[in-house]
């Protein structure tokens, strides 16, 4: 159906940040010092987009529609039977994503005003950040796969630009390239999935896919399994799942607000969004569901183990993000699409808060070291400790987020994580494999609580290890940085209210379930979702809470059990800790078994043999040599002596006469 009211103007949410990108980009070239203007345009356009999104949401909430509202902008690919429009779609799911992206995006833009104030690339930074919002909104608003793919690639580009924002340092530029290339591997899958989808269904638009897939595809058939697995390959790349997750921890090379916005709250959740968007296809492919849930559970557990032994505060959070994304995939893989989206939303709140909080900590540490001209690592938690006295607001708010991610009721993370685990447990009644996935998820929850308690204890508790001189320079940042933290803190606490489970008995129960019902309805026909009720339900909840509390206590006690040496004097890691600290040597394994053979193949085979020997020597030089030789042979006829020419002429004439006379 056509869009009405505010929804018809939904393109403004894209156009406004795009205008911001153009203006900030122009300023970055012309007036890089006009920071006041940039501070106005950058966050201003995103906040305006949030206003439009909120208005569209209020309209949709007042008059809910069963069908998605389409806003076709123009015909993009008119090619025979393939007609692709560039068109936007306003429905319940895209509105949720729209609010999260613009809302969290606005807060992080505001935070960046304080965080990046002294950076010479201030205007460039905001230009990139605005451009990211543009593409992210194209991604969540696109009403067909190609439009979504524009956004999908665009956010990858912005991610690359912002990871390598401080490009003068080669390590940062390398991290950007790593992210870009690993995403390309996944995008290959997404592209092929689109081709097969077009072949099988004759359409790429989401409403039509939801309509035709149940008619044209066999549930559990090869086609739908292939489409979904290839789509999921794209999600693996974008959402940093095993085996393509290693780019995300390296992406922490970018500025911290970027890590919060792109690599925690929004872009990396695009994979979860894509699965939820194409829910009917995944619901029809049980094999793919098992793969999605299995990879999700494995990633949740695996990344959590690495998070146990990292010292860089942002790296701990990065592995935590990978792990939490695994939870979301466990949810959507179990068929609990709403639970996955629910965790996406709450995770956006508390993880953005954790990242911005770590940004606040790094900001304070950096300034302290800067003031005393010390060359210590401002991100290493071993150099922190006892910061609660100097950064009380940051401490309190990050503490809340820690409780939320550990799953302590009644904070938001408890509800969303519990819902995912409950659905995984419920699914196990039909598919026993889900018992394993559920157990992995529960174990990962324990590890999550442990590493988060460790992070908080090392950073904020105990004695300060920054140094006597530096200590005097530690202080809370300005209100423009703590303000967004406060808003995110409130959302972290109350975020669970959007989808309260039935046992709460008060308030708006299952609000998100009912809100997203029209979007998830096509999948519902193929799935029989059930969560445990009665005693088992309460036992699971009790277990989840116990896991959270036990994990927090373990993490707290073990971290502060003995004094922590500062980073410079730290002894080398030993045994299993060394394995975890070195991230299971996965990067080294990839280097040894994928990168090096590829380099060898490219250099030895493709370059030396194919290019240099076959093409250059045999092909180019060889043909030149051959024609030269032939030309030389021909030139032997040209003796330059008139007599020879005459004899030949004579012989020719005789031959012609002979031929004619005969």
């Amino acid at each position, binding site marked *: 159906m056509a869009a009405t009211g505010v929804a018809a103007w939904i393109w403004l949410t894209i156009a406004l940040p795009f205008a911001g990108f153009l203006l900030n980009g122009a300023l970055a070239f012309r007036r890089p010092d006009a920071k006041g203007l940039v501070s106005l345009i950058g966050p201003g356009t995103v906040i305006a987009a949030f206003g439009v999104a909120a208005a569209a949401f209020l309209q949709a909430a007042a008059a809910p529609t069963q069908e998605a509202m389409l806003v076709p902008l123009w015909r993009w690919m008119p090619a025979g039977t393939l007609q692709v429009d560039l068109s936007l779609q306003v429905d319940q799911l895209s509105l949720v994503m729209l609010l999260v992206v613009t809302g969290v995006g606005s807060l992080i833009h505001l935070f960046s005003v304080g965080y990046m104030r002294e950076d010479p690339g201030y205007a460039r930074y905001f230009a990139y950040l605005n451009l990211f919002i543009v593409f992210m909104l194209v991604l969540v608003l696109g009403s067909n796969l190609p439009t979504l793919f524009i956004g999908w690639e665009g956010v990858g580009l912005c991610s690359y630009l912002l990871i390598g924002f401080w490009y003068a340092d080669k390590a940062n530029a390398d991290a950007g390239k790593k992210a870009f290339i690993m995403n390309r591997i996944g995008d290959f899958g997404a592209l092929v999935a689109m081709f097969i989808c077009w072949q099988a269904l004759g359409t790429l638009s989401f409403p039509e896919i939801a309509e035709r897939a149940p008619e044209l595809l066999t549930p559990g058939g090869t086609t739908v399994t292939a489409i979904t697995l290839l789509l999921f390959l794209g999600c693996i790349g974008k959402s940093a799942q095993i085996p393509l997750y290693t780019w995300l921890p390296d992406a922490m090379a970018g500025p911290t607000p970027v890590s919060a916005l792109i690599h925690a709250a929004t872009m990396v959740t695009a994979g979860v969004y894509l699965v939820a968007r194409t829910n009917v296809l995944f619901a029809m492919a049980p094999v793919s569901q098992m793969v999605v849930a299995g990879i999700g559970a494995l990633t949740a557990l695996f990344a959590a183990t690495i998070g146990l032994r990292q010292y860089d505060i942002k790296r701990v959070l990065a592995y935590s993000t990978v792990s939490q994304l695994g939870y979301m995939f466990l949810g959507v893989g179990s068929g609990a699409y709403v639970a996955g989206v629910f965790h996406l939303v709450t995770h956006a709140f508390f993880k953005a808060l954790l990242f911005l909080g770590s940004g606040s900590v790094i900001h304070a540490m950096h300034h302290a070291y800067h003031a005393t001209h010390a060359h210590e690592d401002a991100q290493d938690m071993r150099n922190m400790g006892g910061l609660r006295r100097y950064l009380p607001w940051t401490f309190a708010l990050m503490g809340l987020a820690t409780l939320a991610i550990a799953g302590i009721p009644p904070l938001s993370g408890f509800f969303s994580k519990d819902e995912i685990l409950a659905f995984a447990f419920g699914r196990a009644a039909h598919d026993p494999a889900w018992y394993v996935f559920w157990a992995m998820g529960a174990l990962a929850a324990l590890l999550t609580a442990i590493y988060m308690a460790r992070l908080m204890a090392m950073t904020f508790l105990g004695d300060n290890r920054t140094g006597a001189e530096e200590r005097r320079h530690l202080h809370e940042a300005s209100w423009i940085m703590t303000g967004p933290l406060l808003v995110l803190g409130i959302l972290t606490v109350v975020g669970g209210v959007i989808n309260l489970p039935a046992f709460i008995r008060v308030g708006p129960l299952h609000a998100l379930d009912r809100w997203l019902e029209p979007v998830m309805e096509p999948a519902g026909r193929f799935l029989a979702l059930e969560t445990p009720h009665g005693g088992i339900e309460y036992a699971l909840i009790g277990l989840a809470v116990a896991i959270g509390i036990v994990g927090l206590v373990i993490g707290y006690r073990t971290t502060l059990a003995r004094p922590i040496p500062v980073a410079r004097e730290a002894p080398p890691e030993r045994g299993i800790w060394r394995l975890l600290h070195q991230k299971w040597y996965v990067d080294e394994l990839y280097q040894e078994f994928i990168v090096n053979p590829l380099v060898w193949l490219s250099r030895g085979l493709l370059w030396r043999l194919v290019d240099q020997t076959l093409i250059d020597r045999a092909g180019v030089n060889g043909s030149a040599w051959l024609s030269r030789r032939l030309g030389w042979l*021909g030139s*032997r*006829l*040209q*003796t*330059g002596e008139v*007599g020879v020419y005459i004899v030949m002429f*004579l012989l020719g004439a005789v031959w012609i006469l002979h031929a004619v006379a005969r």
Partner: protein
Amino acid sequence: MLLGPSLTLSAILFTIGLAGVVVRRNAIVLFMCIELMLNAVNLTFVALSQYHGLNGQVMVFFVMTVAAAEAAVGLAIILAIFRHRQSVDLQNINLLRG
């Protein structure tokens, strides 16, 4: 009338000219041999014109005209070559060798 002897003479003259062109190396002699060949052909024209009308006779005049022009140009070239290389021996003139 006398067609057979005429054509025989013509063939002999032509062959002498051709042999000269092939064998001799002096440019002047070569040139004279070419003239000989042309005149052998002229003789053929004249001999055959008694059977085929005056066309052959007329053609002879054309050939003589062209031969005269050719002699002028050819001698000029030979003269130029001689001035340049002090020789008209064709063995030495092989600039076009590949």
